[in-house]
């Protein structure tokens, strides 16, 4: 391939974002605290510009660059736009919270954007190396973000825990990658797939490699039994960081799973039954849905509760993945995007409710919200019902599509397990609604939220309803994306 600047065009979103990060990093140095607002505005503008770049550089055909290390296709476009949009929401929710705690520093936004850049690389990864690079960029930024409030012991502890376990998981992943490389001699997914299809590879080595890689993926998703970090990190991190960390990376993790499992190791998938990754995902999915939902029932800390709820949602995403090509992948992608959008809103609302010196993180902090602010309560209610999967919110369709994919794949029993646990799960979402609507408020303090956060939470909450009434709009995008693979 001859070098030509125009061949780099599909990379435009990453280039735009990286340049913006560099500029913002320098500009931020010369701003005094009163003008920090400027960094915030620039960061959001950078993300919006990156979305524009994704849209502008998109084309119908898939493009492969850099000797197979980078792929741009319809799936990467949709996922990048989703993770950038969810990232914008997370940034907006963070402003007031950070300002009140004296944490309003440029690093928050540059680290966040670096994490997003890492995720964009993961989404577009064409091979194990670029995927791993993106993953590490994401992980390192997140470790720093979790410890962003240096004075918070819980935050530092969470960051430490996250770092140690994350490093372990990265090690596992690398180990698995090395085995797959050893087995196939290839690092790019297309090459790996071809080598597996040729049937000349050693299946034992590949199976071991698969197990280790799957552990890495499960860790990133937070699937049982690799979920231990999630509750502690969600709880320990500042709520605005949790909003970011609990939502956007799920989209990248989905892309990682799709790229590795479907594009790379597709030959070790459904055809191999219980020995393939499909069988392994069944176990992970059932454990996640069961443990996540049951343990969330008894949590009083809402951040921790949502962490366990995430684990159960990951179970659903896995169910979509294991249901396989077409419907299965589409439903998993739909579920992931919807989940990220819902989670960022739920944590964002907690950030809005946290005032100076008061963290809203227990369920009783939400008591009587309907009295204090009916609009915010309504938005939170929409998000809770969406997570519970009650129509007319979009969460219902996310679950429905997964169920449909499972039944299509002749796995009726798994569909029954899924719905049974989602009924159990409905209880803890109802507890939140109950606190907001049926209980008397503990605090009468007015809710101070900037116009930016109010608009964002309204858009976010109403999106639950909009996509619940018109799910076809998002579904069509996901279908087109999966078909292009």
């Amino acid at each position, binding site marked *: 391939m001859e070098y030509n600047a125009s061949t780099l065009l599909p990379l435009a979103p990453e280039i735009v974002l990286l340049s913006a990060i560099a500029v913002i990093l320098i500009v931020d140095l010369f701003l005094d605290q009163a003008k920090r607002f400027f960094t915030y505005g620039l960061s959001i503008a950078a993300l919006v510009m990156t979305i524009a770049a994704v849209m502008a550089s998109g084309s119908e055909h898939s493009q492969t660059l850099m000797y197979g290390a980078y792929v741009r296709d319809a799936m990467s476009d949709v996922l990048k736009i989703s993770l950038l949009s969810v990232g914008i929401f997370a940034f907006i929710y963070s402003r007031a919270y950070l300002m009140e705690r004296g944490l309003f520093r440029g690093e928050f936004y540059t680290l966040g954007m670096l994490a997003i850049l890492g995720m964009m690389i993961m989404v577009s990864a064409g091979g194990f190396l670029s995927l791993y690079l993106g993953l590490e960029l994401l992980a390192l930024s997140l470790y720093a973000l979790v410890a962003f409030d240096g004075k918070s012991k819980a935050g530092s502890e969470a960051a430490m825990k996250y770092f140690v376990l994350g490093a372990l998981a990265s090690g596992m992943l690398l180990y698995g990658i090395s085995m797959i490389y050893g087995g196939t001699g290839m690092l790019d997914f297309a090459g790996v797939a071809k080598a597996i299809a040729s049937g000349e590879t050693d299946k034992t080595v590949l199976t071991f490699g698969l197990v280790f890689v799957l552990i890495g993926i499960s860790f990133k998703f937070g699937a049982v039994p690799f979920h231990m970090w999630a509750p502690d990190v969600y709880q320990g991190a500042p709520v605005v960081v949790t909003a970011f960390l609990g939502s956007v990376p799920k989209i990248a993790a989905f892309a990682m799973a799709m790229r590795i499992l479907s594009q790379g190791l597709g030959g070790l998938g459904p055809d191999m039954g219980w020995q393939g990754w499909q069988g392994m995902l069944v176990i992970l999915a059932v454990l996640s849905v069961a443990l996540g939902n049951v343990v969330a029932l008894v949590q009083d800390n809402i951040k921790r509760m949502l962490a366990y709820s995430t684990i159960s949602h990951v179970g659903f995403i896995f169910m979509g993945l294991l249901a396989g090509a077409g419907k299965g992948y589409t439903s998993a992608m739909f579920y992931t995007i919807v989940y990220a959008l819902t989670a960022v809103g739920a944590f964002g609302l907690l950030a809005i409710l946290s005032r100076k010196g008061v963290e809203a993180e227990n369920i009783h902090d939400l008591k009587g919200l*309907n009295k204090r602010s*009916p609009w915010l309560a309504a938005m939170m209610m929409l998000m809770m*019902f969406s997570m519970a999967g*009650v*129509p*007319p919110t979009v969460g*219902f369709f996310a679950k*429905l599509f997964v*169920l*449909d994919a499972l*039944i*299509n794949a002749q796995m*009726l029993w798994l*569909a*029954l397990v899924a*719905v*049974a646990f*989602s*009924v159990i799960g*409905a*209880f803890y979402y*109802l507890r939140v*609604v*109950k606190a907001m*609507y*049926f209980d008397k408020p503990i605090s009468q303090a007015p809710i101070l939220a900037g116009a930016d956060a109010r608009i964002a939470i309204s858009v976010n909450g109403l999106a639950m309803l909009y996509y619940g009434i018109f*799910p*076809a709009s998002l*579904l*069509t995008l996901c*279908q087109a994306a999966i078909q292009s693979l």
Partner: protein
Amino acid sequence: MTADWPILSVIIWLPVLGGLLVLFSGDKAPNTSRWLALAVAVLTFLLSIPLWTGFDASTAAMQYQENLPWIESFNVNYHLGVDGISMPLILLTTFITILVVIAGWQVIQYKPSQYMAAFLIMEGVMVGVFSALDAMLFYVFWEAMLIPMFLIIGIWGGPNRVYATIKFFLYTFLGSVFMLVALVYMYFQSGSMEILGFHNLKLGLTEQILIFLAFLAAFAVKVPMWPVHTWLPDAHVEAPTGGSVILAAIMLKIGGYGFLRFSLPITPDASHHLDWLIIAMSLIAVVYIGFVALAQKDMKKLIAYSSIAHMGFVTLGFFIVFMIAANPEVQSGGILGVQGGMVQMVSHGFISAAMFLCVGVLYDRMHSREIADYGGVVNTMPWFAAFMVFFAMANAGLPGTSGFVGEFMVILASFRADFWFAFLAATTLIIGAAYTLWMVKRVIFGDVANDRVAALQDVNKREVLVLGSLTLAVLALGLWPEPLVKVMDASITNLVNHIAVSKL
């Protein structure tokens, strides 16, 4: 029959959007939101009347159909339409909602705009349940109904409201998710979500039985049938009057409607196979729950149990069909049972609403539902006593009231199947009279029990309007049920003929 304008969409979305408008009108001027809610409810009712007047009773085909693509890649459509089974229930919904809005006029002082909005949104959603012809649309409306009811009981309910409302939500949610799996399974088999398409879908007996049980989980909870009825007394006792009225008058009917629209026509062989189960559950509801009602000390609980017993008649009437067909001596008359069940549903919609409103009238004044706190109310509230005695008579199935017609038709149909079924069902005429009239005797008659009863004010104009209009409805249906029966006739005949043909 088609109208020039999308009548069904209008009566679904007008109350929903009107409800949102009421919600945004806020509580600064509560009277504005009340009048606005009343205007929306009345307008919706007026707009739903053409459904009846323009209805073509000679055909069983769906009328006023609207069909738009909704989720094209899943072949899910926004498909609406009514037949003789759903149309009367839609009118019942729009009618009862007006009464609920009026009944909550003064009582609800806490956030009246949210209260009114919840009922209006629920009205639209319930009409949607009755008119959806696409299973996915049906399910979305069916579940969406839970949210406003959950809030109504939880926000404006009694002391133990949180327990009651969460129990209500989880019970119904658990029942309906199994229905969802069954619907998706049939979608997988047929490639479409059309309910009418499901009617002609060929299914093996095992499949039918599993699907039937999944539907049973959803509908039996909603009706509710013994032994999954336990959420209902809790929900009724804690719900505000309006919530109880909607719950008893319409939501329970949705379970019965589900049997007619889904269970019977989609799984006729499984229904035939398992009709003994439903008949047994229905008879237990009629007899055993009747005795339970007799033992209640709380008026609302008593009426809640009486609702379960009355709904037992509905399911009995629906499922007696197979036994009648199997009885070599009669061979016909299956239609009578289903018709009786439908008449019973509409009639119970009026009577249970009236009974709960009567208790509401007392509760607003005394803040007690305990029978023991009352006595001699007739001395201070003569007009009210007249209404309450009338509705109690109707509840007990006095000839001339609507309560008699449905029960009589179902008992008549049961005789054609088996004498003992009819015998057991007929005991309700005694037990029902016993628990209703005994309650009336203790509450209304006798000497004035205490000073608070002595200080009671008789019903005001607003309450007379509500109870009076229900009196007219109960009498009209009781004396002249012909129009209702005629409207339903073609659809029910078609249904009974359809289920007589095995799918195997």
